[in-house]
């Protein structure tokens, strides 16, 4: 059993990090900001870990976990400051313009990390030391990060700052006229998302052992957006579920190719053509589950089932929410 878990360790850790990255996009979205900057901060966090662990800290043998925590702090500060600066400039934009600006930010960052000597140029940084012996052990870092981020987001939506986010998302002008500092709310949300993505990057850099400019890609931007939209953008559980599920999906498809009863062509298709299936499922879930898999109504129904209530009595007269994202 443990052997099996260990052999699957890489994918479990990636799934958990997928959940964290989903949340990193969800946080700005709470304040109505569609930011696709997460891969940039993710890459930056990874480079912090890669540079510090291969150049600054000279450690013999197993890499101590407390140094990873130091990297966490450095990455959080660096991503936070950068997110603050980018946010100040970019958050004057809304909707698709903001999305395009954040895509541009990620691309500029990618080209710089591709060319700077510090970040290892085109090949990137190799042989990043591992604090753990097995892939599965990385859950000791990734698991608490996901749980902390999810709890933080859950609580955030219930306190003053989070309610300010929601007010900005629903109607920025109305929020401002009620005395909400909308700029501050938007930048706070943006910085929180950036820091979270950076922390995920630190873990991922150690876990996959090598880090390069390829981590900051446009494809990743859209993949993380898909985590949120497919998972559901109206509750914090949506992006987490989306991140876990969509990271697992291609791997699961590849696993299925091993079944004996499949004809050769089908197995071959599952191995080399699995991203065709991924793309089709992505498009299909937009069409068939436009509000995501996990919606507030879905959660309410689960709660009712949990209480043994079944369907509520009387007619539900609430209007369903419109199919909007931000």
């Amino acid at each position: 059993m443990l052997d099996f878990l260990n052999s699957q360790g890489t994918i479990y850790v990636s799934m958990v990090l997928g959940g964290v990255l989903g949340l990193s996009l969800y946080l700005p979205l709470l304040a109505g900001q569609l930011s696709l900057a997460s891969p940039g901060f993710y890459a930056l966090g990874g480079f912090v870990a890669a540079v510090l662990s291969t150049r600054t800290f000279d450690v013999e043998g197993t890499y101590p976990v407390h140094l990873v925590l130091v990297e966490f702090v450095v990455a959080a500060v660096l991503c936070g400051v950068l997110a603050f600066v980018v946010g100040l400039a970019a958050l004057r934009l809304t909707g698709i313009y903001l999305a395009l600006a954040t895509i541009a930010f990620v691309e500029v960052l990618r080209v710089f990390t591709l060319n700077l000597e510090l970040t290892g140029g085109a090949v990137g940084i190799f042989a990043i030391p591992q604090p753990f012996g097995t892939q599965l052990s990385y859950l000791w870092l990734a698991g608490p990060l996901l749980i902390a981020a999810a709890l933080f987001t859950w609580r955030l939506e219930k306190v003053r700052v989070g309610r300010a986010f929601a007010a900005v998302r629903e109607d920025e002008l109305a929020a401002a006229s009620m005395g909400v500092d909308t700029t501050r709310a938007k930048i706070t949300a943006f910085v929180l998302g950036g820091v979270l993505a950076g922390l995920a990057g630190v873990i991922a850099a150690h876990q996959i052992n090598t880090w390069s400019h390829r981590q900051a890609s446009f494809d990743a931007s859209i993949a993380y957006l898909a985590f949120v939209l497919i998972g559901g953008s109206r509750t914090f559980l949506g992006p987490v579920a989306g991140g876990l599920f969509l990271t697992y999906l291609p791997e699961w498809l590849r696993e299925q190719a091993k079944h004996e009863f499949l004809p050769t062509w089908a197995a071959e298709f599952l191995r080399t053509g699995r991203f065709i299936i991924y793309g089709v499922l992505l498009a299909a879930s937009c069409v068939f589950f436009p509000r995501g898999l996990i919606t507030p109504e879905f959660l309410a129904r689960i709660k009712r089932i949990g209480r043994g209530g079944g369907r509520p009595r009387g007619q539900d007269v609430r209007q369903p929410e419109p199919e909007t994202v931000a």
Partner: protein
Amino acid sequence: MRLIFQKLLNGIAIGSVYALFALGYTIVFSILRVINFAHGAVFTVGTYLTYALTGAAFGRNGQLRNASLPVELNFWLALVLGALGAGVIGVIVERLAFRPLRRRGSDPLLTLVSSLGVAIAVVNILQYLFGAENYSFGETLGSMRASVTVVGGELPVVVRTKQIVIFVVSMVMVVALTFLVNRTRTGKGLRAVAEDLTTARLLGIDTDRLIRLSFFISGVLGGIAGALIGLAGSFNYQFGVAIGLKGLAVIVLGGLGDIPGAVVGGLVIGVAEAFVPAEYNAYKDAVPFVVLLVVLLVRPQGILGRAQVQKV
């Protein structure tokens, strides 16, 4: 001076095809107010189709190992048919990723992801069938000379014939599109739909047909751009991604949904790239995005656009 002239010519050649590609984004955006992220994939399909129609064989890594079509068209005919094929792919993309969501009035952001889903599927189908290797068009321009000397003398300014082809074909398409949009009945319909989809439908315009048409035109433009850029160098299944992103910079620079703006934007980005000093060549790919960021922050309506008044 000579060097500046040479760089200017190079920049205009590549910029004109950026413009052509970006027009495909623009025509769809002007009507639906969404960016079709599958445009880069349609562009790649156009390149592969044109390549196949010239009778060239595919490599050894895909499912269609060493396959080739039984026809051997010359480049021009292959270009036209390949572009029409890409147009058909564009219509299929609309049917699969746009129409079902539009029918329900979903958020445009979802369309962004669904179009990207289709793009991922299309690009990976290309890889599945034809492998991941690089392809390039052979000596497809027949008996034409490889290059033309614009300014003679000791330090000549030379333009490759392929650059001239790229520029001329791009400009012909731009002019044809402008004529279609501004001077024909169909173009009037397209402009009406772009102005206000609902009102146009109420007035009896078949909006679904015009939306399909806009995707077809978009696909044709993308397909031609793909074949032309493929002609200038080599291509593989992923080469739509980079141009797809550059195209975003072009349309924002020109003002989203603005046809003349997209042309100017394409030329500006092409020339800007060409003028990056050789020692900073590695940073060339960042140029469109730095331009994009600056434009968004300083003049989000684009260089030719007018600021829109935000109504409450």
